[in-house]
């Protein structure tokens, strides 16, 4: 079990290194950093000087090590476009994206799991069928279309909810949250829904499949044969056994959430990292792109480590390892 965690840690480090390397090559070889930083009117000598300053003439390996080192120390360099320190840029955007992603994920779980259970327990029922078809259509409509539709329905036509941005935010230290003000929460609804919908369908279908598998296992059949009350069978026996694989998937889903938050943020003008990333792509702001890359990878890896721990917590077979 310790070995298990150790292994995952090593793997995570590997992943991070690989991504950092990607990011670095991106930063180093896509376009010329110097010509990016300097205007058309900068003289060649100045460029050469800058090149030297930035250490772009040093051996590749050395540069990478420096790059990685800076990252580890939280020095992310400066944006080509706005000249701002990327660390700060991301930090100001981070809360927005995390809050959006988390809420979306919560929505997807809060709705997806029950729906999955329901459709698993009544697979032939009319409701289940319609839910299934519904979600199927849900995944088939591009996220951005859904987003725009929601905006025009609830924002413009009904005027119930804000159409863009985060609304009022409250600052707790450097963390700027929109969870503590009514306006903020209202602005969160539409983006979170848009983002959550896709994950929701995934979660639901997964839970459904797992649950149906579990309901067929011997220990459930035995529980039935022992006359254990149905709800206990479903929620005390079947559900936990269902959740084990589901938990792991949720970790992977986080990747999806981040990815789609790019789309959602661009639709709702949500001031998160995704929006920043899109802009950096539009203006070929390589440093921002590469750092964003690293940050995302970090979160992904981190979440999945977390998931592994949860996994250990809920599965006794991994927790205790002696056998009579």
């Amino acid at each position, binding site marked *: 079990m310790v070995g298990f965690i150790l292994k995952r840690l090593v793997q995570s480090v590997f992943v991070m290194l690989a991504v950092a390397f990607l990011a670095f090559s991106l930063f180093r070889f896509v376009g010329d950093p110097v010509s990016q930083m300097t205007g058309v009117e900068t003289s060649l000598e100045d460029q050469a000087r800058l090149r030297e300053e930035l250490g772009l003439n040093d051996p590749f390996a050395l540069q990478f090590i420096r790059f990685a080192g800076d990252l580890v120390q939280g020095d992310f360099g400066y944006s080509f476009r706005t000249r701002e320190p990327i660390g700060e840029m991301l930090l100001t955007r981070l809360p927005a994206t995390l809050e959006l992603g988390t809420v979306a994920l919560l929505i997807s779980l809060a709705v997806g799991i029950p729906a999955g259970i329901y459709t698993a327990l009544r697979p032939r029922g009319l409701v289940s069928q319609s839910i299934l078809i519904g979600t199927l259509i849900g995944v088939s409509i591009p996220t951005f279309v859904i987003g725009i539709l929601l905006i025009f329905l609830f924002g413009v036509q009904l005027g119930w909810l804000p159409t863009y941005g985060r609304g009022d935010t409250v600052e707790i230290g450097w963390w700027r949250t929109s969870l503590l003000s009514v306006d903020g929460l209202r602005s969160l609804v539409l983006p979170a829904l848009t983002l959550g919908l896709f994950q929701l369908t995934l979660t639901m279908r997964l839970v459904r499949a797992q649950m149906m*598998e579990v309901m067929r296992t011997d220990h459930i059949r035995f529980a039935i044969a022992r006359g254990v009350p149905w709800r206990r069978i479903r929620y005390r026996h079947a559900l936990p056994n269902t959740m084990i694989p589901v938990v792991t998937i949720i970790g992977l889903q986080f990747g999806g959430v981040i990815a789609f938050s790019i789309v959602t943020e661009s639709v709702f003008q949500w001031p998160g990292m995704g929006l920043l990333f899109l802009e950096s792509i539009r203006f070929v702001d390589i440093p921002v792109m590469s750092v964003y890359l690293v940050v995302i990878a970090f979160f992904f890896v981190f979440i999945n480590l977390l998931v592994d721990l949860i996994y250990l917590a809920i599965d006794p077979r991994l927790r205790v390892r002696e056998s009579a």
Partner: protein
Amino acid sequence: MMLARLMQTEGVWLFSRNPAAILAAIVTIVVVAGAVLAPWIAPTNPYDLSSFSLIDGLLPPLWEQGGDPRFLLGTDDQGRDMLSSILYGARLSLIIASVAMGIALVLGVSLGLAAGFFGGRLDAIVMRVADVQLALPAILTALLIDGISRGILPREVHDDLRLAVITLAIALSLWVNFARTARASTFVERNKDYVQAAIMMGQHPLRIMLRHILPNIVGPLLVIATVDLASAILLEATLSFLGVGLPADSPSLGTLIRIGMQYLLSGEWWILWMPTVFLVVLVVSINLLGDFLRDLFNPSLR
């Protein structure tokens, strides 16, 4: 071959009593046919500049007031026939999606097979690479690849390669699925006696993987292929929406939708909704087929 057999027995029977699947199949066939035959059945060729005229711009669909019999689904801001654009667009989207899916399939399955069969270090490496890929979700990968190619390729080259870039990007974000599934099922098959027998008899690993294992893991792969085809189409659309998709003179469904977005409010609703509805219908039916296959290959869910 194995599919063929499946179809003539179990499959067909289940299929025949699954209206959703039948409907989906029909729709898919019709759409795909329409897309493939676009050059022959489309009223006009949207790529041929002289074939349309700005004069016909923004005409509503036939049934709408002011519709023009020449343009069943109306025209866009350039005076292009929507129907033709959609057919050609679907064609492009399907080409991109299926090529990307194909690449992902070959890449992922071969890696997965090898990893699952040989295990050990190879397996570890492949899976770590997969992890890295997973850490960079589909859209991100696609955006990056596009961004990179913008950076390193001269512009006109990049524009010529745009199709390739998009396809590659999508493929890269899809291969992991195949790899993981192939690996998992290979692990299972590898320990079955028939593979053990083959190994014991000293057959060539390549032969064992391709002749023996592969045919036995086609099922789950097929399911993934279907679902991924759908998500590939969506991904392409999303990329186009984010502006890294295909240029407007060779519009894919996604590009059409992106263009249509400008007319969401303006009253020329058909420019947005015709392609969107088309896309959704297509994807839904492909997904339905995917579901059907999944149930087919996973009897316990029946």
